[in-house]
């Protein structure tokens, strides 16, 4: 009996992780354009980027500095790790330049493909092993919610990257976009640092992350709409 119940719980977690992705795909118009293969390609580039990042981390950084000094939040280690996240932006740029697409769809394809690849690779195994265990833990539900937040964040990053690459972007908005991109890269430093300083509980941590992701998303949406109207898409 126990086994079925844990499988049911696993189903709950899976629904929580993947259904928002499916809904985004289905109702954002991507399904009508047959953008599935493009999403897969974006995912492929995600994997490639991660491999490059790992290579860089393993080559140039000492494992001791990366792991920090035991437990707790280590500022230097996080800063070093985050600096490699520049590669993520390059990955986004690569997807945006390589994948043909029209207007909004291009950005959603990029963000969704990227986030989906990440969620499958990083959460799939953990959920399969963890959420089906006899032991109940809130961790899995929290992780699932966090991956929802990541979807918003990655679509935002794709938008920002696209804006950054445009030459016809209003000059006064350029610094804002750059700052938002920098904030995205160094999220690991300032956000995690802030959260560890404030000693938030796991639930409020998720709430803060969701709040920040939506604020950044709204700001980029605001910039994007301006440019989109200007160039007429």
């Amino acid at each position, binding site marked *: 009996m126990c086994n079925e119940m844990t499988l049911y719980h696993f189903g709950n977690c899976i629904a929580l992780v993947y259904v928002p992705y499916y809904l985004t795909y289905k109702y954002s118009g991507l399904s009508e354009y047959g953008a599935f293969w493009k999403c897969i390609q974006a995912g492929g580039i995600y994997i490639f980027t991660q491999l490059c990042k790992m290579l860089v981390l393993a080559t140039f950084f000492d494992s001791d500095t990366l792991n920090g000094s035991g437990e707790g939040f280590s500022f230097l280690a996080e800063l070093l790790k985050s600096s490699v996240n520049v590669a993520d932006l390059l990955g986004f740029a690569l997807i945006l330049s390589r994948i043909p697409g029209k207007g909004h769809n291009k950005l959603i394809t990029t963000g969704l493909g990227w986030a989906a690849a990440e969620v499958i690779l990083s959460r799939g195994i953990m959920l399969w092993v963890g959420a089906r265990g006899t032991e*109940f833990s809130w961790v899995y539900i929290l992780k699932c919610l966090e991956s929802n937040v990541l979807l918003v964040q990655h679509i935002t990053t794709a938008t920002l990257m696209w804006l950054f690459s445009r030459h016809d972007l209003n000059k006064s908005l350029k610094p804002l976009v750059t700052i938002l991109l920098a904030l995205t890269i160094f999220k690991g430093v300032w956000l995690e640092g802030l959260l560890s300083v404030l000693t938030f509980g796991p639930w409020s941590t998720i709430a803060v992350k969701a709040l920040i992701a939506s604020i950044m998303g709204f700001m980029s949406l605001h910039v994007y709409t301006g440019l989109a109207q200007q160039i007429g898409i």
Partner: protein
Amino acid sequence: MFEDAENFADIFRGGLPYLLIALPVILICSANPVLASSEFSVQRMSQFDVNGVSYGCRASALSLEAKSLYTWSTGRHCVVAKLQDISIEQFREIRQKAGGLVILLPKNVSAMTFEEKEHLNLLEQSMLSQANSIPIYFSPYNEELERVISDVTRTSSINNDGKAQRSSAAAELFASISANGYQVIVSGASHTASKNSKIPIIQGELAATSKILKQVENGGEANSKLPLIIIAAHLNTFGLYNEYPLNADAAVLLTLADVFSKLHNTPNAVPKYRLLFLLTESGTLLNFQGVKKWLDENVQLQNVDFVLCLDTITQALNAEAGSLYMHVSKPPKEGTAMNEFFKLLKINAAQYENITVDGVHKKINLADQLVAWEHERFSMKRLPAFTISALKSPKEPIRSTIFKDSEERIIEQTRLHAKIIAESLAHYIYGIQEPSEIFADKLQIHHKMIKFYMQLKSALHNNDLKNAFEKYLKNVKIMYDKPDTRDPDFMLYDGQEARLNVYHVKPAVFDLFLTIIICAYLASVYFFIQYFPAMYDTVCKLTKAQTQVTQSNSNNTKSKLN
């Protein structure tokens, strides 16, 4: 496949048959992953058969929901509780109706009150007095399991309050959703009969050395014709669970062997007696099977003055100094060796802290399956035998207890009793009537000696016992009593060690509740995506308005400039 797929759903349309086959296969192949939250090493309750009657715990498999003493109701619940909290009534109910029992042993038995110790003892006796069909496990004290127990008990008290109030169904539902459950799983235990169950019996003799032998021979007596005194004790290797209880009797036996061998090596002090030390690893619980076997093997015992059995020479719990008892099956007649020894014992005991010795007479009940005292086995073979014990009655639950008080008091008392017995025995051997201290100075019985001998383990585990016998005694023999294959007198069982996993689980209602919440959340995500174009338009208008404003502003400035 991906190229052909027009949209996401196509993948599943094409792959659904495969998925339907693959998914169950994956599920079957991958065993349920075990992420142990808390793992404890536990001991299964002892299990043994004597004369075809089963005792102890007869089961081992356990995978049930943990409940407290007050909330369990069905055979699908495993009761998790502290030993001192269980009453005998509760235990009787649990052993009949519950699915299992996990007991947390007390942290420090010696710090408990007299009444609490008495309770432990009675509970222990009632557990061991019959066969229990449910699996029973004991865990040494640890804080984590105690937390689980208090958690289980606390949720139960909340539930009880809910029952008392019955105010709202919603509150009760919420309580059942938020309840923390625990799943108890035991792995690694079994309850199969041990293939090499055997009881070691070790004996050694203390006889006159050759020089003395000559003198005796001159007197016309062979060594074997010297009168024989048998000193018998037993070593308990298990009690309620598989651990050594206090073995004060074996310690006294070895101490006697130690000091008497020193006495035998003293020139001009060699007694005209043979002493035979007999240690069997079967106590009260195993019905002194070892002695039975030994008597069957040694039918022709001659010239036996008496057999001195030691049983619970010191109480492991609530030890009270002050009295020793000499148990006999037949009141000794005047002039017999036994009577003489009894008198000497009384005289000598009075010398040390005024200990009194009383004789207790109990007839052998042949109809009884279990032998009350070890000496009854000898008495049945018409050997003059008696038991010296600190207990007045053979039915005292303390006899087979596994719990111990703090060591110092026990050792001191054991030393005193060993001293009394040694002195009386020496007085008897040398025929001294007046009390005088023989074991003084070099022959002194030390605390260290007793402490060391108390730690000896079974001859099946190491050679310490054999070495100790060989050090002081001659003709050391070890024999093993193995159960008969067809009609076994006794049987021991394997699978005592096990691992207990306690998992934090939620009730089924909780998952259902979670599904509702997740569905609501997903619906909100759906509406958000549905209304995203509307939001986009609003933001568009906002930016348009702004750009218009900035444009009009710039136009204004331009016009002004113009």
